[in-house]
């Protein structure tokens, strides 16, 4: 089976390189190394959000899985922190001049641009779940819709 899962009991920022390494080596073992850049970027932004916002940097349960479903590479992240819907963060104005430029929301914006689909769900028992999909063959392995 293609699916592989990594679980951390108390994920903190120091764990991010390890999380990314897990995803990148999974991709490389399947000959999908050309998707490393968009996926590691999306996973970095998503994991940083969980650790910083859902857990407030204090550490907490974190699970990431990599899978292939049809033509999609599917990365799922689960945590049991505060509900945090990336869709609730307003989209940044990436055309604003320096004076009016705000940095908030940029991580989520980049994450969405790197993937073809990002879905979020929350339930009291399972906590937060983020599912990100990258369709293989889209935009030559780089960014979608460009």
């Amino acid at each position, binding site marked *: 089976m293609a699916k592989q899962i990594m679980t951390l009991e108390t994920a903190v920022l120091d764990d991010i390189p390890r999380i990314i390494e897990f995803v990148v080596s999974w991709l490389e073992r399947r000959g999908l190394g050309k998707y490393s850049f968009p996926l590691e*970027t999306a996973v*970095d932004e998503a994991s940083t959000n969980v650790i910083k916002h859902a857990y407030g940097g204090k550490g907490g349960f974190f699970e990431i899985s990599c899978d292939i479903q049809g033509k999609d590479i599917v990365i799922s992240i689960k945590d049991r922190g505060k509900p945090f819907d990336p869709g609730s963060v307003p989209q940044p104005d*990436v*055309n604003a*001049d320096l004076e009016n*430029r705000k940095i908030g929301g940029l991580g989520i914006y980049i994450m969405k641009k790197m993937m073809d689909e990002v879905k979020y769900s929350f339930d009291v028992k399972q906590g937060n779940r983020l599912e990100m999909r990258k369709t293989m063959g889209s935009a030559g392995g780089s*960014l979608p819709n460009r």
Partner: protein
Amino acid sequence: MDLTGKKSGDVNILGLTGRLDAYSAAEVEKKLDAVIESGCVKMVLNLEGLEYISSSGLRVFLSQLKKVRKQQGDIKLACMKPNIREVFDIAGFTQLFNIFENEDAANNSFTG
């Protein structure tokens, strides 16, 4: 993440090597703060060795650019790798920064 520096006149040329992510961003911000506080507001960042940047890294670049521009300085970027460029393009940072092919061109643009 590694940051090395040298001076060329009143321009500080700094080389960034490694990954600029949430983990390393605070350290880089501190180092750049120290450069600005020492009175140097003209900087060239050589990004030849920068392999990766996340939004945390972009945040540092943006906040430092705001600081130096307020003091009639600038942060010029050189030798950006294609992946880094792509993140800059997505974030709309390409039009905020002066970006150069190489370190000399960036450095010369201060005097030219």
